[in-house]
């Protein structure tokens, strides 16, 4: 009845059916996963429940307090510390992105020794013992055999707090005086201007929050300038936090910044004449008799060269507008003028900032709420004042063979100095270079020995914010997570080296670890202030509370100065003429103004993909760099949005896509700083160009600042090269689609909806 053939068919059907049934059963399963328990549970971890640790943000020098959300030992999210007086619970994109600095796949994971030729980037992994031994032997031989301790240089980023005093101590004990700090944006000109005007070289607290009329000269304070999170909150309060009062903002700058876009008025001033405008306004204030001081006539005599009529010609701002601004500035009290990075970046930036100080003085804004409030000095342990001037001296010493050993820590001068400064060649003269940086940046790649350090989220430390908020504060950095890679604390490296060298140095650095030193230093602060401002009865209690709260108000060391500007001797510091730009205006028709990118700042953020992915707030460009040109200028040259152009200064040229930007003067072009890394990890390397490369080598002899707005350029279309600009926006226009409904402030106040 069943033949052989049918039987085989049945077997086939049966087999297929069973297989299909088995497969369906398999498919309907939940995916299997392993459940790995702790071997021994850490005391402070509950799986699934977050721990929050306070710390300090190190992505820029604002010194915001942060809290780090840690799950099972992994940092997951960073927020602002709600108790911290600088950022009050808020945090900017750069701070948020510091998680990616921690988990960056291109971090240096082990100590490295140079293998091939210097600068070729060939390294081999070594152990910490070998690395410390190499450094110690070098320092010992420098010290013992030849007595050349002065030939050791330590170059770091802006470090404040106890690590700074620790390094100072070490270098001094070693017998060198060459500890210097260098960063691109150190506000040297602003410090100098304040020192000359008020005799106080601290950054003041600008009370944006309580002002009625804010005159911002090139200060992009909502985006990158000095302490943007603090200022942004102040700005919000100034605009909407006071029922019935809406502060007015006038932004004076050749290129409309993010802050300019938020202002009520934008004055597209001719680059390099901002200080003249401030003096012109100052003269108008005196002329109208708004300044009641006894020295009014003296001021008038000094400033009579700056009649608004003459200033109008130089600044290309209408005389009536200058007078109107002056009146508004003097009548609305309190008012506040701030001179920002764009002004500080001119060759005579310090003079222009002094002009802004004078303007504030004549309007009576110094030391007033809603004006300029000086910060106490002394609590900050920073030594950068002296250091700034030395970056050029450093380059010179390196070229002349005066440096035998260089230790770099988080400083990248190769990227942030103009090519014309030739710092790379200079550094190349140094026989032994050690980098303590955690990323392979352009300067670290030149090292012979790399001893990688922790990121701030893994590290102990503290920070004394400058500018503070009218009183001194210290913020403590504590490790939120265990080190991800085989890295160490910078202080610990020096402690190990001191141990090896021994002798007097070991005596000067007697601690076993940097965190022991840190705790010791805070113990001193505790002992000094116990019972006065410290309520806690034991140091351990104080320390625990400090770590929990994240910051502490330091007793002010110096008293506040009244902040009166004397007419005596001020004359020599006044801006005489518009800032000089290299290149003649026939061959180089455009002013070049550089500005820090909102994500990358001076280039340090370019290795974080979140920041690369973040559209620039004004242009919406991602993952790249661009040159901003006025659409009319570009049209005249046949350049379309995204076209590749060559930007050429007398010192070099770069190829870069053009972004047609209505918010820039027709005679000015602007490029953000931050891209154009040769190295610095997969996300940053070979992306875009670095505009600092085509700058002239100039340094303000008084402040040591490198002017960024100092050359003219010419633009030529590069038809041969394709543009590669990626932007999020389709168009800057809404074509009557009413995507954003707008009203003017006057209309709004008539609508009676304020408050």
């Amino acid at each position, binding site marked *: 009845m069943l033949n052989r053939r049918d039987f085989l068919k049945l077997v086939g059907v049966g087999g297929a059916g*069973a297989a*299909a049934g088995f497969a369906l059963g398999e498919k309907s399963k939940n995916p299997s996963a392993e459940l790995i328990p702790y071997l021994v549970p850490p005391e402070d971890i509950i799986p699934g429940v977050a721990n929050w640790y306070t710390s300090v943000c190190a992505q820029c020098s604002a010194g915001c307090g942060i809290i780090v959300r840690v799950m099972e030992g992994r940092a997951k999210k960073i927020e602002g510390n709600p108790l911290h007086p600088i950022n009050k619970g808020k945090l900017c994109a750069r701070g948020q992105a510091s998680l990616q600095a921690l988990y960056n796949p291109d971090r240096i994971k082990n100590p490295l020794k140079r293998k091939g030729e210097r600068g070729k980037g060939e390294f081999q992994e070594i152990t910490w013992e070998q690395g410390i031994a190499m450094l110690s032997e070098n320092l010992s031989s420098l010290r013992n055999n030849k007595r050349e301790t002065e030939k050791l240089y330590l170059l770091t980023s802006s470090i404040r707090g106890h690590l700074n005093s620790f390094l100072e101590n070490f270098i001094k004990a070693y017998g060198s005086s060459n500890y210097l700090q260098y960063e691109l944006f150190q506000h040297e000109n602003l410090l100098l201007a304040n020192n000359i005007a008020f005799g106080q070289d601290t950054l003041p607290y600008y009370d944006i929050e309580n002002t009625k009329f804010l005159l911002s000269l090139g200060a992009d304070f909502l985006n990158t300038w000095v302490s943007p999170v603090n200022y942004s909150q102040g700005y919000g309060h100034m605009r909407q936090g006071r029922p019935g009062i809406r502060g007015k903002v006038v932004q004076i700058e050749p290129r409309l910044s993010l802050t300019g876009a938020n202002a009520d008025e934008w004055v597209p001033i001719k680059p390099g004449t901002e200080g003249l405008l401030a003096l012109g306004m100052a003269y108008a204030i005196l002329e109208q008799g708004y300044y009641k001081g006894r020295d009014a006539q003296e001021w008038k005599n000094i400033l009579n060269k700056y009649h608004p009529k003459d200033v109008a010609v130089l600044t290309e701002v209408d005389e009536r507008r200058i007078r109107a601004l002056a009146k508004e500035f003097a009548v609305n009290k309190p008012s506040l003028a701030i001179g920002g990075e764009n002004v500080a970046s001119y060759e005579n930036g310090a003079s222009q900032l002094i002009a802004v100080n004078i303007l504030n003085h004549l309007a009576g804004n110094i030391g007033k709420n809603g004006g300029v409030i000086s910060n106490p000095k002394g609590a900050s342990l920073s030594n950068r004042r002296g250091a700034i001037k030395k970056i050029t001296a450093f380059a010179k010493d390196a070229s002349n063979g005066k440096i035998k050993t260089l230790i770099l820590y988080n400083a990248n001068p190769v990227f942030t100095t103009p090519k014309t400064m030739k710092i790379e060649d200079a550094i190349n003269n140094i026989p032994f270079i050690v980098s303590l940086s955690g990323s392979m940046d352009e300067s670290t790649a030149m090292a012979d020995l790399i001893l990688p350090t922790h990121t701030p989220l893994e590290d102990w430390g503290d920070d004394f914010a400058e500018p503070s908020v009218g009183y001194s504060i210290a913020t403590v950095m504590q490790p939120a997570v265990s080190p991800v890679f085989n890295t160490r604390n910078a202080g610990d490296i020096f402690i190990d080296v001191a141990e090896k060298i021994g002798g007097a140095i070991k005596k000067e650095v007697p601690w076993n670890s940097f965190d022991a030193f840190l705790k010791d230093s805070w113990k001193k602060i505790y002992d000094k202030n116990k019972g006065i401002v410290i309520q806690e009865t034991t140091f351990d209690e104080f320390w625990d509370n400090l770590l929990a709260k994240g910051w502490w108000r330091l007793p002010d060391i110096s008293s506040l100065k009244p902040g009166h500007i004397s007419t005596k001797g001020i004359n020599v510091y006044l801006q005489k003429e518009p800032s000089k730009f290299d290149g003649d205006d026939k061959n180089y028709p455009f002013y070049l103004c550089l500005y820090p990118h909102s994500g990358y700042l001076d280039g340090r953020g370019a290795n974080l993909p979140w920041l690369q992915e973040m559209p620039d707030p004004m242009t919406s460009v991602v993952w790249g760099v661009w040159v901003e040109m006025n659409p009319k200028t570009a049209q005249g040259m046949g350049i379309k949005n995204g076209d590749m152009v060559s930007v050429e200064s007398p010192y070099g040229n770069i190829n870069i896509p053009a972004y047609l930007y209505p918010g820039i003067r027709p005679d000015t072009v602007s490029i953000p700083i931050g891209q154009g890394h040769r190295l610095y990890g997969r996300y940053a390397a070979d992306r875009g160009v670095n505009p600092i490369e085509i700058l002239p080598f100039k340094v303000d002899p008084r402040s040591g600042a490198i002017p960024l707005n100092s050359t003219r350029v010419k633009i030529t279309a590069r038809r041969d090269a394709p543009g590669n600009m990626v932007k999020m926006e389709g168009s800057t226009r809404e074509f009557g689609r009413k995507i954003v409904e707008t009203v003017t402030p006057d209309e709004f106040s008539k609508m009676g909806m304020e408050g």
Partner: protein
Amino acid sequence: MKKVILYIVVGVATFAIGYNVNAVYFSDRSPIQPIAFSHKIHAGDNNIPCMYCHIYADKSTVAGVPNVRKCIGCHKIIKQDAPEIQKLTDYWNRKEPIPWIKVHNLPDYVYFPHKRHVKAGVHCQTCHGDVAKMDVLTRVSSLKMGWCLDCHTNGAVAIIGREVKNGKDCWTCHK
């Protein structure tokens, strides 16, 4: 015609057999664990409360699988010679955590906090079954969304004496 029916019958029958073989012998409901741990011995015979080992159930989203030190804490003394306990001792000596297979595994788009359920008064057994009788732990619930919603819509009254707040809101579980 008869043959076609025969084929279909055989096909369906073997399909069912295949499916059941998978469900019974290759089940994800009771996977084979690296150590043949018996809940019956621990929770049943010895009456150890659930939260003696699963210590985070009322504190966290996860109930927590006991750390190896906790196991060894008792088994340093108890039943050292048993072959399964020797496996445990080996893990401890190698300083290796035990790679348990998850019996109750939720996809990561589901937010399920143990804490809320425990605090609302749901007994462990409601979802996990009578583990005190299980030599090999078996998942008794489907853990599918419909099963969750059985309680979240109206079944909760019988279990905790009240309805679930925002029980039907998508965002309650899918954050």
